[in-house]
């Protein structure tokens, strides 16, 4: 065991004075293992999403409470959940999935206001916040508050009503949890939505089945429309293994080990004054540290 560890991690005669872990053939094995890990994860996720998936817990009730808390903190009035604005948000989400776009304006030129008007809300002012791939409600609201343009919408004193749609689907080939938040103010007294449906009736990925075009918006009856809107009040997924966490753990452990081995290898070689044909350890360490910093900056949640 000791010999194996020495051979693998330390420069020695047995490994031509270069830790075996840094030999080209071993590096090739790393690349193959990482590729296998990538494909394996994707395959298992497709086959068994309840085991390996994206942990998500976003609920309308929490989004509404958190948004109103932020407003209350600034002495602003609470926003009322509005059924028509929620319908507009649902239509917008459906349009984004069915036309595969991530933008405030659709490829056909439909603006958020198109959906607001078609839902029967006569606005004097309106706004839209979008978010995708966040794992929880507070993450969404905090990210919106950290972005000046989204924050402006949340704390605009003129808004009176708000509507949400939280939907899971496939956007640009990627499993996506979309949050559409539409704000509005109207001269007319608008219909206030009923209380959000109990959390247990929230839609999960499993419930949405294939997740592609979510809804048919032909001419739904008022009841059907209402029940549809109620069905978009949360996305809750609790897989056994959360893909982003698992991936990060594996990648950072690997990077840490690699940097550690490079440090030990460089230290031993420099101490023993060994002359060998090899790349520069310090450069590799700098490079992998830069990669680590870049990967630490990767966030799944995106705003628009």
């Amino acid at each position: 065991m000791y010999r194996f560890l020495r051979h693998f991690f330390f420069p020695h005669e047995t490994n031509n004075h270069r830790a075996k872990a840094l030999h080209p053939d071993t590096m090739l094995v790393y690349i193959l293992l990482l590729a296998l890990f990538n494909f394996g994860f994707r395959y298992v996720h497709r086959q068994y999403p309840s085991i390996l998936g994206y942990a998500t817990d976003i609920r309308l009730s929490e989004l509404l409470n958190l948004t109103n808390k932020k407003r209350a903190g600034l002495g602003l009035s609470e926003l009322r959940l509005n059924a028509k604005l929620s319908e507009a948000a649902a239509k917008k989400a459906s349009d984004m999935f069915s036309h595969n776009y991530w933008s405030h304006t659709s490829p056909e030129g439909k603006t958020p206001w198109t959906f607001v008007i078609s839902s029967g809300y006569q606005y004097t002012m309106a706004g839209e916040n979008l978010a995708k791939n966040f794992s929880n409600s507070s993450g969404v609201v905090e990210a919106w508050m950290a972005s000046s343009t989204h924050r402006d919408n949340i704390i605009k004193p003129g808004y009176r009503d708000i509507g949400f749609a939280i939907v899971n689907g496939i956007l640009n080939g990627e499993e996506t949890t979309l949050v559409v938040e539409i704000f509005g103010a109207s001269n007319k007294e608008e219909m206030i939505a009923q209380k959000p449906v109990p959390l247990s009736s929230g839609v999960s990925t499993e419930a949405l089945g294939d997740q592609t075009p979510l809804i048919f918006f032909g001419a739904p009856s008022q009841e059907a429309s209402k029940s549809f809107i109620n069905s978009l009040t949360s996305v809750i997924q609790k897989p056994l293994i959360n893909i982003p966490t698992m991936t990060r753990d594996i990648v950072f452990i690997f990077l840490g080990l690699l940097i550690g081995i490079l440090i030990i290898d460089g230290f031993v070689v420099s101490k023993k004054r060994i002359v060998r044909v090899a790349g520069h350890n310090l450069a590799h360490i700098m490079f992998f540290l830069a990669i680590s910093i870049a990967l630490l900056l990767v966030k799944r949640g995106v705003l628009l």
Partner: protein
Amino acid sequence: MKKRWIPIINFIVLGIILSSTVLLFYGSRGNTSMQVLIGILLSVLYVTWGIIHHAMKGDLHPKVVVEYLLVGAIAITLIITVVWM
């Protein structure tokens, strides 16, 4: 220029390459395809830097080139793993 300054200048250049591409990477948050492209660019620049550095030092060997290529490939695989997972 004195020869002993060359490695120092090379490492300063490497530092600039790494920090500027990491900043670019940060600037393209939310655009996963762009982040992967920047990751590939970072790796290509690193391999190029490695080859030039060893050529200037006078110890460029095919084994060294292969090592830099593999290090670059590992980095690209890691970036794809995290960004596209």
